[in-house]
């Protein structure tokens, strides 16, 4: 029973991270039809910032803010320097470009920071926890789950209640008509990248709190998980991204619990395998969102 509960908390905590990554990916995708593979590198940027600031003795709270800010700035730079000129390019070109951007950034990290892992000096409270009976709960997990819940809730309200939020939704539906409402195309795109960058930054904080070292390719794995979460949920829909993130985490933790020790190294392969079977069953993802590829800017 305790073990079950323990696994459940693990899954929700992991699912929170995946959901945040998936949301960040989905926001940009829904508006620009751009699968931004460099989303992982936004997380890596946050990771290196966290490493550098904590090393310099900055208070953890400020370091966390700096990390998020770094992701947001990186996201905005990406939009301005790489993606803006390609807004009307065909989907395949966009896809390859974002892949190339991801590769280029990884190479740059390698150039600046080297291949060796940089250990992040986490504050002590990350390991702290409390007990309920036999069950030991880490404060970190509680923190991750609560913050993610708050973020998802406020994102929901933002998209429902503010004009910018409504514009983000309408642009995902029909960009041309959104401009007819007098809403600036650039503002929408920049807004989407800012949100995406902020989500990448926060997801990175949680990710690096559980895996406390950063290498040039750190962002690849969470990025891929986030994308797979989006695809099994239904690429382009935000609720689907959140559901996909949690589903993926439950698959992962569940398989890990069931699998024998000799198989657990293959966890990722097995989870992806299950995801593929899910796609066999529903090629459009669980929510099977309708996509209008032609309505980009």
């Amino acid at each position: 029973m305790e073990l079950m509960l323990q696994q459940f908390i693990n899954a929700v905590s992991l699912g929170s991270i995946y959901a945040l990554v998936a949301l960040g990916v989905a926001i940009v995708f829904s508006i620009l039809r751009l699968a931004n593979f460099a989303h992982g590198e936004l997380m890596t940027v946050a990771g290196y910032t966290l490493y550098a600031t904590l090393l310099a003795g900055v208070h953890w709270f400020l370091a966390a803010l700096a990390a998020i800010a770094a992701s947001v700035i990186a996201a905005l730079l990406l939009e301005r320097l790489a993606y803006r000129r390609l807004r009307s390019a065909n989907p395949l070109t966009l896809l390859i470009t974002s892949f190339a951007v991801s590769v280029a950034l990884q190479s740059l990290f390698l150039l600046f920071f080297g291949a060796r892992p940089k250990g992040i000096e986490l504050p002590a409270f990350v390991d702290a926890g409390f007990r309920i009976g036999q069950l030991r709960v880490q404060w970190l997990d509680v923190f991750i789950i609560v913050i993610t819940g708050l973020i998802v809730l406020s994102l929901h309200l933002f998209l429902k209640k503010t004009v910018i939020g409504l514009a983000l939704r309408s642009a995902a539906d029909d960009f041309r008509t959104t401009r007819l409402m007098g809403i600036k195309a650039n503002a929408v795109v920049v807004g989407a990248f800012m949100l995406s960058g902020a989500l990448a930054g926060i997801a990175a904080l949680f990710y690096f709190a559980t895996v406390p070292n950063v290498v040039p390719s750190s962002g690849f794995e969470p990025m891929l998980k986030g994308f797979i979460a989006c695809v099994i949920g239904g690429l382009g829909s935000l609720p689907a991204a959140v559901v996909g993130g949690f589903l993926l985490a439950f698959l992962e933790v569940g398989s890990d619990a069931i699998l024998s020790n000799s198989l657990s190294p293959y966890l990722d392969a097995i989870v992806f395998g299950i995801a593929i079977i899910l796609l066999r069953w529903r090629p459009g993802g669980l929510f099977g969102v309708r996509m209008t590829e032609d309505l980009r800017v």
Partner: protein
Amino acid sequence: MSSLGNQKDSSASPANPAADVILRATGLAVAYGAVEAVRNLDLEVAAGEIVVLLGANGAGKSSMLNAIVGLSPRVGGSITFEGHDITRKSTEMIVRSGISLVPEGRRLFSNMTVRENLRLGGAALRPAEFEREFERLHDLFPILRKRADSQAGLLSGGEQQQVAIARALVGRPRLLLLDEPSLGLAPIIVNRVFEIIEELRRRKVTILLVEQNAERALKIADRGYVMSNGVVEAAGRAADLQASAIENAYLGTAGA
């Protein structure tokens, strides 16, 4: 090529030359790659007028409206609105300067509510201002009160058209462009749409209307232009255009 009217001849064109022309397109040209949709087109709309733009399918009417708001690729000519050159402005700036387009096919944001659609139409308004405008539209569009929180995509075609017009009106535009508002609607609903246009006319909204339903459109319009193959075939007062123009140009039997 028949030239029943000549829009360059100012005596034949604006209904009242004294009234201030708020929209003026001069030598406008639109091309999609090699396809020339609009060629050397001159058009004027004066404040308070209803001007109708007629023409067969593919004549270039939608291209013309879209060109005014900067959505179709303009390759020549210029457009001024209230004396300001808007030729090179972006769509969003043109809309903000007071022109609103109800696009062909309505194009509501179908998975958002009616209210949310209207909120976007009045994106530049402050919340309190928006509420006031929203209320103000209720008597003209009762549907807004009844279905405010319904998903726009679930409304009937006629209801959607009303929401689309309302959405264009919330921002209090000084010029309304309507692209085939009666398209695909049942006759009884078409009546409703024309009623709305007439009501707007009473409220002194300036309208540039594209319609397939030439007869009805000419009845409510002050002036009209008839387009064919991207050029103006005829222009003049609505009453004068009625008989001859429709036969000649609009039905596609013109020289072209």
